[in-house]
């Protein structure tokens, strides 16, 4: 139960909003942090904390790609498939990942290391194609970069190619 374990944190989140149900997303993050994904039990509990119905929580979870309804691997690869990235080849990127990992989007590799997802715009449109792995962005991706990232992650659990949580587009005017 989240309520027992994170009482203070939940109270703090609730205190931020004049309208109780506004606390829905932060509470969902909390739940996801706990289990790696949002469980049914968590959705029910959050509904009862916010005095809304479980379907209302569920609806929100299904809307945001950042919230997972199923367990994900150690590395959650989220490839942007929105327009800007699509124009610079996000489908090639996705295809490459599918081949390299041997899975289709929505699935996790047998070793439990990688989950592949397609997501909407991650606000790095100037540096596509791009993907987010756990909390880090990887931008201007090429097949070769992707191979290195996967190898790094497997070996070290991290990769120097990450651009951090967010990267400004580089200046092109000199």
């Amino acid at each position, binding site marked *: 139960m989240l309520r027992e374990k994170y009482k203070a944190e939940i109270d703090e989140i609730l205190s931020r909003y004049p309208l109780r149900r506004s606390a829905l997303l932060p509470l969902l993050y909390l739940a996801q942090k706990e289990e790696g994904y949002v469980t049914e039990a968590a959705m029910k509990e959050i509904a009862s904390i916010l005095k809304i*119905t479980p*379907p209302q929580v569920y609806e929100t979870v299904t809307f945001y790609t950042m919230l997972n*309804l199923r367990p994900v691997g150690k590395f959650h690869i989220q490839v942007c498939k929105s327009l800007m990235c699509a124009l610079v080849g996000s489908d090639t990127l996705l295809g490459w990942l599918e081949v390299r990992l041997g899975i289709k989007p929505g699935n996790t590799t047998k070793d439990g290391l990688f989950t592949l997802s397609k997501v909407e715009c991650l606000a790095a449109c100037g540096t596509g194609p791009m993907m987010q792995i756990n909390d880090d962005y990887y931008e201007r991706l090429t097949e070769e970069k992707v191979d290195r990232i996967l190898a790094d992650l497997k070996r070290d659990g991290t990769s120097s190619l990450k651009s951090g949580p967010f990267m400004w587009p580089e200046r092109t005017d000199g």
Partner: protein
Amino acid sequence: MVETVKLTIDGHHITVPKGTLVIEAARQVGVMVPHFCYHPKLKPDANCRMCLVEIEKMPKLQTACSTPAAEGMVVRTATTVVNEAHKSVLEFILANHPLDCPVCDQGGRCDLQDFSHEYTPTTSRFIEVKRVFPKEYFSPLIETQMNRCVQCLRCVRYCDEVMDVKALAPSGRGTMTEIKHFTHHELDCEFCGGCVQICPVGAITSRLSMYEFRPWMLKRADTVCTYCGDGCQITIQTKENQLIEVMSAQGAGRNNGDLCARGFFGYHVSTHPDRLQHPLIRRNGELVQATWEDALEWVAETAIRLKLAHGPNAFGGLIGARCTNEDLYLFQKFMRLVVGTNNIDSSARYGQINGVRALRRVQGTSRWTVTFDDIVSAEALLLVGTNVTETNPITGLKVKEAVKKRQATLLTIEALEPAVGTISNIANLAAHHFSVQPDGFKPAVLGLIKAVVEENLVSQPLAQKAPGYVQAVSEAVRRLSWQAIERATGSSSQSFIDATRSFTRTARAVILVGQGVLRAPDGSGLTATLLDLLLLTGHHGLPGCGVAPLAEENNDQGAVEMGAALEYLPGPSDANDQAARARLAQAWKEELPKGPGKSLMEMIEGARTGSLKAMFIVGENPAGSLPPSAGTMEALQSLDLLVCQELFLTETARLAHVVLPACSYAEKDGTFTNTEGHVQSVRHAIELIGESRPDWEILSALSVLMGYPLEYGDAKEIFKEIRSLIPGYGLLGPAPTPPRPDQAVVESYLKTGYSSGLAERYTLGERRAASGERKDFSLTLLVTQTLFHSGKFSTRAKGLLQVQAEGAFSLNPADGTRLGLAEGDRVRVSNDLGEMTTTVKLQDRVPVGLALFPEHFDQEARRLLRVSTDPATQVPYYKSASVKVEKAK
């Protein structure tokens, strides 16, 4: 004065109130703007883009469903540009639609079909593969076909905005949005059928009639639901005398097209295979099939013989308030003239009488002085003991509309905890909620009155007009200590003061009184006290204000008004009102029987002691409703003649000498009077089942054989007679015209009338909790009405049985923990009267210390109940008991 604006739509000039949406203004001049997501009941969402129109001076096309009409606006709905827009929106929708009209139940009444027919080219530019959702089981009653969904979200918004249930989730995004419940769980909700009705396409349909019809094959009959006092207008659709479906058109009836589960899914009772098809007569102890002639003759002969031997007062008559006004009227006429007795009662005795008595006493009316519309436009609403969603769901919708759409202040005094669940909970919407045990209703009401008095909120004009009354009531409440009220209600004095302040501040206040008050000891007294509250705050008599006791059965109100009660003649007039008696005697050309008459419980007592020899029981089942401790079975068994007019072989009918098969509401014509006092037409939808006949016809046939013919050609003729006796009865308009309080009666109440019983009304009463028999582990069992059934009648509706097929013992999770009980545990519930075994259900909304059990499945639970009879109103109370609970071995 409402501000108005003038505009032009396709060349038509029209003036509409400011704020009217263009789509509505267009409808008024007969221009239909195609739309999916718009619905007059819902807030504009403008998500489907189907309603685009051209408006002069606006650069782009506008959505007619979200654009308010403005002065001088020039709107065009049929230009080439607009048509192109309609085409492309449809092209988008059809890009994914499966076009499975041949197997879709919506086919023939589908907005997508109609608009496609009107606007789409036959070709599409889309060559992509269509989206396909994997088929998932949705629920036993409601089917979803998400590939057909146009994603207008009407269903989701209806479930939230109107129902306040919020059971539907649009899951996913964009074209892949799919309407679901909660993950892969099957739907658990109020099953109002609203989403089925409001879906413009065939994405949500009823499973009860799946694949059984095409709309044009159906015969329609507009009639009235028989499952509660709200009196919803329904359209029963049939095919070859088979009931196919029930719906209610947008705007229809007092319910405005909304229904509850009982109305929408409960219609299969009428054609249940157990329906009695032939008269039955008892021979050698067995009920065997007989002809109508034999059965009626036998009844007439026996009745005549018994009347000669024992006199007319050895007879009693009891009728169910599910009957039409025509049945009820003829029944009391039959009892009063053909038999010659005032021993007449109906199921209105179980509670409705309490409300009517209080209204008559204080304000001289027998019905509400308000209507549903006044509930919707009330600024403050006080609900006492109603759990309105479950007993009167549509009244509940009016309350929800007042609170959610019009920001009314809601006060609730209920045996309900505010908690979100699968069905809506009116306490969640309350600004001031007093969660009390049933015996706390009265202390809580007195708390409000005490606050009115002590905070100087008593209406000044009243204080001047009736100083004696105000003083007497003030003294009475001052005598009650806040501590005692706080103890009895568990609420602080401040909460009563706050609630009272927000109540008195408003100009329009309505008080709804529910079964928790009307079907409990001194229901009439507490209703009168609620009228006191309205008098003291100065609301009483103002437009839109009033106290409204809720009728549980569909024609409870009619039963009283038709005079199917010992104390009332048709009107209702008091049975000892000499002028009324004279009028009636003149109309009937016959003297009325004298003497006081016996009530339901007195008749049972009479049967037991032998003073009552014969009973006519029409559509009522006392042996199945009253607890065994009342000894009803034994009493009825000792009668020399028991005649039952029934649809099914009920507990009572099984004891009868003769059972005459009556027809159901779906097979007869007549009128019902709803809780507001609105008289509405009942029309037959199917032909009579077997040899069954309408109740009035059976009574009429009997009267002929008994030598006192009461003959009528049809129900209309009876209604004409009712009208001649009660002038203006049932002006069958769209809305009732409520009576005004009778000032003479109000004045006499304020002068002296209030004082009788004042002392009892203004005491807190014994807390039942304090009585010795209660142990630590004990709970108060309350046998209640639930949303999914109506009495025992609906327990033969196959649709409703899929939602609720048996009773469960609902208690608060805290009590569960305290007693070591988990959901689904089998428990033994017992007290000094008996015991039962049932299943535990944990529900946050049940207050601690209370346990609920549905009356519809109370065959066993009734064993634990004791009956007490109100000395003043003869109302039997038997809805609660103190019980002990333990895990069953």
